[in-house]
């Protein structure tokens, strides 16, 4: 489905990614986990085609990514909603770009607005919505466009803890219903464990995949899974791996 082959990415002297190889199967929920500055956003931007790798290539569905590819729908941390469009028009944006007639695209957008629980807010502008609601619009907008892959770049990082939990739950339900392939970026171990079917732990300077780990917590899942013994086992295991890495990078930056 997605094949990241021998990717390196330099920004001038700085090597953001080094020899990254990842193969992702259809229907996987992959979480890229790592401290800030480990190149996880850079990697996601390469998959979305916003940026080109220095060496290596990204192949999505058998086609090499050379420019921005609508097959990989991106959910941004900062929502990136169009402030001059209503909720309905924002969600229908991708369909409008495809030239789908107004009536049809609005009907389709309406379905996804209901899916994320925003019925009644169709005619609101984004400025009238809370952060959590804006991120729901952003998710609905990507879903309405029906991409093969959904990329989420720390989508819940700017939200308060309670809203985040609700949205995590909703994202799990959306994943179970749609069975889309998902790549999700976070620096929260809890978020990674709750959502993923597979976790890739990244290290910094240069960015590399340090550990590739299966998340065998049962699906369907909800937040209650955080109380299970297996959850804590996995969490301890990840923390062991991450701890030394975090310490190393703290030392590297403090000198």
């Amino acid at each position, binding site marked *: 489905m997605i094949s990241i082959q021998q990717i390196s990415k330099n920004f001038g002297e700085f090597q953001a990614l080094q020899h990254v190889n990842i193969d992702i199967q259809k229907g996987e929920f992959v979480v890229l986990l790592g401290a800030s500055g480990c190149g996880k956003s850079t990697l996601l931007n390469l998959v*979305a085609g*916003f940026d080109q790798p220095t060496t290596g290539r990204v192949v999505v569905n058998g086609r090499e990514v050379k420019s*921005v590819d*609508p097959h*990989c*729908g*991106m959910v*941004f941390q*900062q929502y*990136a909603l*169009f*402030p*001059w*469009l209503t909720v309905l028009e924002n969600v229908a*944006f*991708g369909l*409008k*770009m*495809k030239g789908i007639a107004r009536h049809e695209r609005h009907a389709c957008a309406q379905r996804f607005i209901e899916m994320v629980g925003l019925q009644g807010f169709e005619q609101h*502008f984004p*400025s009238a919505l809370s952060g959590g609601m804006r991120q729901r619009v952003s998710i609905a*907008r*990507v879903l309405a*466009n029906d991409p093969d892959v959904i990329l989420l770049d720390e989508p819940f990082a700017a939200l308060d803890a309670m809203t985040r939990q609700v949205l995590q739950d909703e994202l799990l339900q959306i994943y179970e219903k749609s069975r889309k392939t998902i790549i999700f970026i976070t620096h929260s171990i809890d978020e990674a464990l709750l959502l993923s079917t597979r976790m890739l732990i990244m290290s910094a300077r240069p960015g590399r995949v340090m550990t590739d780990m299966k998340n065998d917590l049962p699906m369907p899942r909800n937040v209650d899974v955080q109380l299970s013994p297996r959850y804590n086992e996995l969490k301890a295991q990840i923390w062991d791996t991450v701890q030394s890495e975090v310490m190393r990078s703290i030392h590297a930056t403090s000198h």
Partner: protein
Amino acid sequence: MGGEGTLMGNVLASARRVMVGFFAATLVAIPLGIFLGTSTFGRAAFNPLLSFLRPLPSMSWIPLSLLWFGITETQKYSIVFMGTFAPALVYVIEATRSIDPLLIRAAQNLGASRWQVMKEVVLPGSLPQIFSGMKVILGLSWTCVISAELVAAREGLGFLIMNGKEFFQTEIVVMGMMLISITVLVTDFVFRIIENRVLKWQR
């Protein structure tokens, strides 16, 4: 001091010149500015011409326009157009820079082509800045028209006060100035109403 009909006639004559010149300039400047704002190559190609046009005050176009068009309406329109086009273009180009690049990425990610990005993202996204620039340009249009009418015209508010001066009618001169001020205030008010309608998402 002419009757009310001629007074109103002078106001309307000037207002028409402002409107025709202003709309012609903005109709060209907005699409061109959006194109240049999103195209590094376009900017590089157009910049020499723009750098030449920009420092020219509107008054400096009057002799050339008289030679080309004579004392006609076209000449008045051309003064307004030439006096406002370059600053309007600069405003639009600057306005396109104010757009969050993330919105352009998001649009591309949702399948927007280059043309669709300009039409659906850059234009609406820079519209608030374009509007505030156009308010300045509208004021500038009035300056252009009045100066053109002061030099050569048979009607209009500039003509009215110049004519008043010829006959030592201070009251006509002062009234003409007040009329200019009132007319500009009215057009500004109308412009603000249109702006609020178009930009209702901003409130």
